[in-house]
């Protein structure tokens, strides 16, 4: 018997796990029933991009006036681009819109030879190419060292305060991240749950249990160190103009001190207000917005 018929034979056996049931296959064989022409671009999308577009987490009303984003990562880059003098517009967005799955990202204005989105980790390089500002990491060996305070100690305390403190989570995080994402209660519940789990997992990476008192103590010592680093200067590292480090600090200090966030319990603000130079630093930079 030729081998071809042998190969065909097993198909007549009982259906395996992977075969598509016949009615469903028949249904899908009918597709596509008709192909329509592509939709027009929505009215609100700019016809010709005149400005650079920065996509961040933001409320639409605030975005129109270029107000600060409510997400520290987004606010950091928003502030940095403002400080170095790049012109851009704010577009409210969410993770799913981003090519990398993370906000912020930037669509450069036309004409440009590379009309593609710039993710956050390449924004500094792009800004340096645009306005020829300095790469500040190279100027001071303490830059990366003190940045670790923000990336770890303050970020961990922030994660705890925003996501794991249930009163704050319901008053702030649900309002800002969960409710705009969907109108479906089930989706909202799941998303809220996933956010809290992700925050908890993040904190458990560095310790075997979550100790709120220790997180706060760490944040307090971090604020103290940052305050000592700033000293009497207007900007960090005694620079004449604010830069990336100022933007990174501002991203947290502004959101912690901002009344509009609606915090229910804000221990970090109490700790931060002990250092008047950091509070003044935030107020100085807020004038840029």
């Amino acid at each position, binding site marked *: 018997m030729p081998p071809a018929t042998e190969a065909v034979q097993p198909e007549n056996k009982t*259906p*395996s796990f992977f075969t598509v*049931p016949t009615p469903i296959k028949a249904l899908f064989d009918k597709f596509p029933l008709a192909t329509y022409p592509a939709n027009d671009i929505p009215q609100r999308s700019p016809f010709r991009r005149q400005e650079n577009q920065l996509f961040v*987490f933001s409320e639409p009303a605030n975005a129109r006036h270029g107000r600060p984003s409510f*997400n*520290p*990562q987004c606010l*950091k880059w928003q502030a940095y681009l403002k400080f170095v003098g790049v012109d851009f517009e704010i577009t409210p967005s969410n*993770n799913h819109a*981003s090519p*990398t*799955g*993370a*906000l912020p990202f930037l669509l450069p204005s036309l004409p440009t030879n590379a009309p593609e989105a710039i993710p956050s*980790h*390449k924004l500094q390089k792009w800004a340096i190419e645009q306005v020829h500002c300095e790469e500040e990491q190279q100027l001071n*060996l*303490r830059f*990366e*060292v003190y*940045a*670790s*305070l923000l*990336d*770890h*100690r303050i*970020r961990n305390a*922030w*994660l705890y305060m925003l996501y*794991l403190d*249930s*009163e704050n989570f319901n008053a702030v995080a649900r309002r800002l*991240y969960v409710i705009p994402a969907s109108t479906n209660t089930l989706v909202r*519940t799941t998303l809220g*749950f*996933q*956010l*809290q*789990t*992700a*925050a908890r*997992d*993040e904190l458990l*990476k*560095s*310790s*075997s*249990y*979550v100790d*709120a*008192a*220790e997180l706060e*103590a*760490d944040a307090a010592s*971090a604020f103290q*160190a*940052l*305050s*000592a680093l700033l000293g009497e200067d207007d900007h960090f590292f005694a620079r004449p103009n604010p830069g990336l480090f100022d933007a990174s600090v501002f991203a947290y200090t502004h959101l912690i001190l901002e009344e509009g966030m609606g915090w229910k*319990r804000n221990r970090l603000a109490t700790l931060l207000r002990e250092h008047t130079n950091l509070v003044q630093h935030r107020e100085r930079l807020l004038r840029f917005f």
Partner: protein
Amino acid sequence: MKLQLHVWGPAFNLPSIEAQSIPPSPPTGELPALQNGSVWVSRFRNIVDYLRKYSNGEWDLDRDLTDAGQADNTAFSSFIESRGQALIDLSLYVSSQNYNGNTSPAYGALLQWPNQWIFPPKLHSAAKARTEHLGLSSLDLQAMEEERQRKQSAAVATGQIPKNFIQSPRETVSGLLGRTAQQNHFRIDALTGEFFEPLEAMLGKKSYLLAANETDSPASLDCIALGYLSLSHIPDLTQPWLHESMRAKAPLLSAYTERMRLRCFGQAPVEVAHAFEPLSAPPSSLPWRAPGRLSVAAVGSTLLATLADSTPFLRDIRMNNRLKQEAESEDSELNPIERNALSMFADASKKDMYVSIATVVAGTAALVGYMLHAGLISVTTQSEEEEEDEDFEMFNPGQAGDFLGSLGDTGIF
């Protein structure tokens, strides 16, 4: 009452295998832990704080520091803890040859049955989880790697770098982040450079990291540095890339680590025998005390606990209970508000867990229903198939969390 410091035992000729320096004997389940009578203090910073209070400020290594010095002390400690931990995780745990050839046997020598089979894999997976997301805002590997690759190809094209220099040893860190060996090599190069260069510049020709002049004494930062750097400086690993890059990039720092090690732990290498048989072993400069033998009951409870912890859902229930206990125990150092918050958090995550159990049950029921309907399984073979599917479904909640976690790392947080 003498103070007792409970630590992970010696390995690699160092007094402890852990940088912050668990068998689960302390109530907090973490090492290092300091015991003074009935008081237990765990984690390095808490121990430093406790010693300062205990001695009324006398045992405070940082008391002579200026404000700027204090700030540097905090910032560099945080820097070493975050970056150094990642490198040690990569070197001792994620590099599978080092883990299998050195780390795992070292733990084996320290622990008694059955802990030697239980703890190393736990630490291994924790280290992998910690280093998984090296795309922290400050550890921008992707961009750096692309830039380096561009430079590399340009350099090769112009013949500046000999070909055999580019080819990094394939097996060095294979499996790390699922990248090719060359890419790994450059990532590691960038990571170690970022870690060692500020420390090397800070140390300079001084005897301690924060010393202003010759007569200064070490600060608590030097203790942290000694912990992390001496583990980075272990020479006799199967793949000593961390040791090599430390010697190449930071010669002063290597000498400092060696000097501090001799000063603190003495001339003779610290061996496991010192910790377990202090009387018969050769003399050591550290006052060791052997741990007690494990009782049958302790072995049994460890086995049970591990079994429970590796069962999905049972693990979550146990974690919540531990949290709640911590929250409600009177002697925990939490104030009433925090205690309330923690206990509410435990309750909430318990609710979350019931929701996910319900989801899994519903999902499994739907799948089985579909399979019955489509005639994929008949009733006689159902029990066997169902079990397999259930296992599969049970892991889903975790995967969903991971997905969001990866978004969260760079996005929402």
